[in-house]
């Protein structure tokens, strides 16, 4: 049976997904072993009942991220934090020493030339007080550091998992790699 894989994009730049795609033709060598059941790269709208491996890019920054990651954890057997934003909150967390109101005010009022207004729309999820790495909110099973992690690292990690092994990434990547 094919291994069900999902990928999720929280507060990140999508660089980790780009690096994932950067595996190029090597994706074909794992393609027949996996089924991509949910991802920004495909068109499924709802997260499936149970996924074998979910790969999370990005930090937890808004109420929407928070709800998503909790749901995802409940419906995933293995959860992977992919990239520094997921692993240590990275660049999104650089706002953490500053109060949220001040930041939004700076972006949408102080620095705006036109339409100076705070963004208030029911569809916009409020920002959390502080951006958090994924493991601060839910249990994470595997951490892949890097900004973004190299395609080789991601490929190695997935290939090892597909073989039923826990990949040892300590020599392959680190914070900021």
């Amino acid at each position, binding site marked *: 049976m094919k291994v069900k894989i999902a990928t999720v994009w929280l507060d990140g730049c999508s660089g980790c997904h780009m690096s994932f795609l950067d595996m190029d033709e090597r994706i074909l060598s794992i393609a027949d072993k996996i089924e991509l059941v949910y991802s920004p790269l495909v068109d499924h709208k709802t997260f499936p009942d149970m996924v074998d491996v979910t790969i999370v890019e990005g930090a937890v920054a808004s109420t929407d991220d928070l709800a998503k990651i909790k749901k995802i954890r409940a419906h995933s057997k293995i959860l992977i934090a992919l990239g520094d934003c997921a692993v240590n909150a990275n660049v999104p*967390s650089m706002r953490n020493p500053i109060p949220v109101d001040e930041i939004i005010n700076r972006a949408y009022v102080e620095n705006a030339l036109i339409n100076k207004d705070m963004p208030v729309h029911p569809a916009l999820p409020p920002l959390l007080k*502080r951006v958090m790495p994924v493991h601060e909110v839910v249990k994470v099973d595997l951490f892949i*550091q890097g900004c973004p992690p190299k395609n080789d690292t991601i490929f190695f990690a997935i290939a090892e998992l597909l073989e039923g092994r826990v990949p040892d990434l300590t020599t392959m990547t680190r914070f900021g790699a």
Partner: protein
Amino acid sequence: MPNGSNIKVKTLKIDGKDVSAREDQTILDVCKENGVFIPTLCHLEGLSNIGACRLCMVEVEGSKKLFPSCTTAITEGMSVITQTDRLKHYRKMILELIFAERNHTCSVCVSNSHCDLQYLGQKMGIDHVRVPYRFPKQSVDASHPYFQLDHNRCILCTRCVRVCEEIEGAHVWDVSGRGINAKVITDLNQPWGTSETCTTCGKCVNVCPTGALSDKGRSVAEMTKRREFVALLANRRKEKV
């Protein structure tokens, strides 16, 4: 060491291997001489040892305590153990606490790929930090014409304090505050650029293990450092005495 002094030789064991060393050496000296790797951050060859970062802890047979190898003198017949699960556990935890204490965003750091903290994190197998990050509000001092100080990346190793006092003889740096409020300051806690004692020699910048001190005009990952001069200068001075 001056020639002809009556320094004695002692024998001891490092990880079960017999070694001999001069009686005035520390455990760390002997380990380095014998190619035994011990992680360090506050230690730098040529500067005084202060045993602050606690990364170089080792076990000594017959004692339950852990010993900072950079400030522990060797004794005859001592048996030192440098790698155990217990030591590994503490070394990892120390590094994780350092990462959590300030704001280490490696991916946008001037010292990315050239940083002792980052390197040791990888070497000790840290793939995430298990304690919550503190995200303190820290400042950057870019008032010096050539250098800048980013408190977000400072790990309070005081290498800058020691090199400026012990090698340059200017004593620009000090540490103000205690515990979580500690920070390095220049002169009387004034902007570095207004310091009357700084000779602009750049020694502090080069010994700083992280991106806290850097040359101006370097962008992400561009800041490389030179360290060898410290031991060289310290030795030359000793020989003169």
